[in-house]
């Protein structure tokens, strides 16, 4: 068309310089856990869960150290990943992580990294059990976390196993081409197939106001239309519950169709909000919302059991 002098090509003027929001925002493991550790520490003073938040800050610091120290993970061949994306399957299915050497290495090294941290006897004993466990036992722990089948009598060591897996999964997802992941299903991470931890209305330039759901395992963020249930995809019966008179930056997005909720963090109002740390620190909201009859659909290893 541009060859014809009578029909000059039209310029694409865009909408107020806004691009189409990217479908996924891949994790940046080099800063993810360090920032999370800082956020846990910042949330702690004066909080009812102060001791727990300070402890989790130390766990995130250890994850940060692991993210820098671990050997580079391997990705499947590109053709294989393309085939998975083409069939709307997760590109790096989380089950693969059970046999991933960097995940095992993370779990082996975690107890030593937390040796100097002050913590309750239960947590210390769990780290001791991990340090003394056989490789088969550690492998079984990783597999149980990945299968959402953590035995209730062994919560503590599996929380650390989940923390180790978060590091390995985030480092693996970070290697992907961001254009590769395709939508898999509502409430399913397009990279690893994991469940979400929480969602956030982001405040970043050019995509302000767009909602991203964050994976509980690999921390990939994927675009999910607002006012739509993260678990079942319903757009009917969606409401936002907040604690009356307390900050309105964290709400529970409740769905009357499937009776679940996932938290939504309004980062455009508070840029400090962090998907995992603020999820733990807003446990009070969970207590009120679950009492009102909705089930928690967000998965967070540090709130295992809720």
């Amino acid at each position: 068309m541009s060859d014809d002098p009578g029909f000059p090509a039209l310029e694409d003027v865009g909408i107020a310089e806004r691009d189409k929001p990217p479908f996924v925002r891949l994790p940046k493991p080099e800063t993810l856990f360090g920032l999370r550790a800082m956020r846990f520490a910042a949330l702690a003073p004066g909080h009812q869960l102060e001791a727990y938040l300070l402890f989790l800050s130390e766990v995130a610091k250890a994850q940060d150290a692991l993210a820098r120290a671990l050997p580079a993970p391997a990705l499947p061949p590109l053709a294989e990943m393309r085939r998975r994306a083409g069939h709307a399957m997760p590109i790096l299915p989380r089950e693969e992580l059970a046999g991933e050497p960097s995940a095992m290495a993370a779990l082996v090294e975690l107890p030593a990294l937390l040796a100097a941290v002050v913590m309750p006897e239960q947590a210390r004993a769990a780290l001791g059990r991990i340090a003394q466990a056989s490789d088969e036992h550690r492998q079984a722990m990783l597999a149980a976390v990945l299968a959402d089948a953590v035995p209730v009598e062994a919560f503590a060591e599996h929380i650390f196993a989940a923390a180790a897996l978060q590091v390995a999964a985030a480092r693996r997802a970070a290697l992907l081409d961001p254009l590769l992941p395709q939508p898999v299903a509502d409430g399913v991470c397009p990279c690893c197939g994991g469940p979400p931890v929480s969602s956030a209305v982001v405040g970043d330039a050019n995509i302000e106001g767009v909602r991203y759901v964050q994976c509980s395992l690999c921390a990939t963020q994927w675009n999910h239309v607002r006012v739509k249930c993260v678990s079942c995809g319903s757009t009917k019966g969606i409401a936002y519950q907040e604690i009356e008179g307390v900050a309105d930056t964290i709400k529970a997005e409740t769905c009357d169709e499937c009776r679940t909720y996932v938290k939504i963090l309004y980062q455009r109002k508070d840029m400090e909000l962090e998907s995992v740390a603020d999820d733990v620190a807003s446990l009070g909201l969970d207590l009120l919302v679950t009492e009102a009859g909705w089930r928690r659909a967000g998965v967070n290893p540090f709130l295992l059991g809720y």
Partner: protein
Amino acid sequence: MLHELSRRQFLKAAGAGLGGSAVAALGFGGAEEALAQAVRPFKLARTTETRNTCPYCSVACGVILYSLGDKSKNAHPAIIHIEGDPDHPTNRGTLCPKGSALLDFVHSETRTKVPQYRGPGQREFKQISWGEALDRIARLMKDDRDKNFVATNQDGVTVNRWLTTGFLAASATTNETAFLTYKVVRSTGILAFDNQARV
């Protein structure tokens, strides 16, 4: 669909009481109890976010209306904020100055909510019923059409046009509403017809 029943709820249902959580398993059960005590006096506040279309022009930007209040209770629902819908392909969250002022439009004291009539030579509008308003409009339209309808032009060709009345409809309509509006208005012979304020 994600987890049908959380482990904690299962344990609660099974009568095992508190304790089946990560917080307690790592030895921070005391803090968990303190939190549970602290939130007890608090209540939930409910807001909704609803998609709609800006009523001003035919660009039809998507908007999200934030409202407060629970419809099932006595609380009076109120719209507290309106912003561009970031998921809408037309405007991607942006709004023009008129669209940005929609909240004031909704809450304006001078907003017209009922049919009103100001007769010739009268100073004030007075409220009338929808029945009266529609009857009067229909009467005036019928009289005007009977007087000014053009069935054929100078050359005797059938044209069936009615040029002395125009019709202005809203922009924030569905395809179905637009279809019906078009069919009704055109069937009378009206040519001056627009679906937006364009101002």
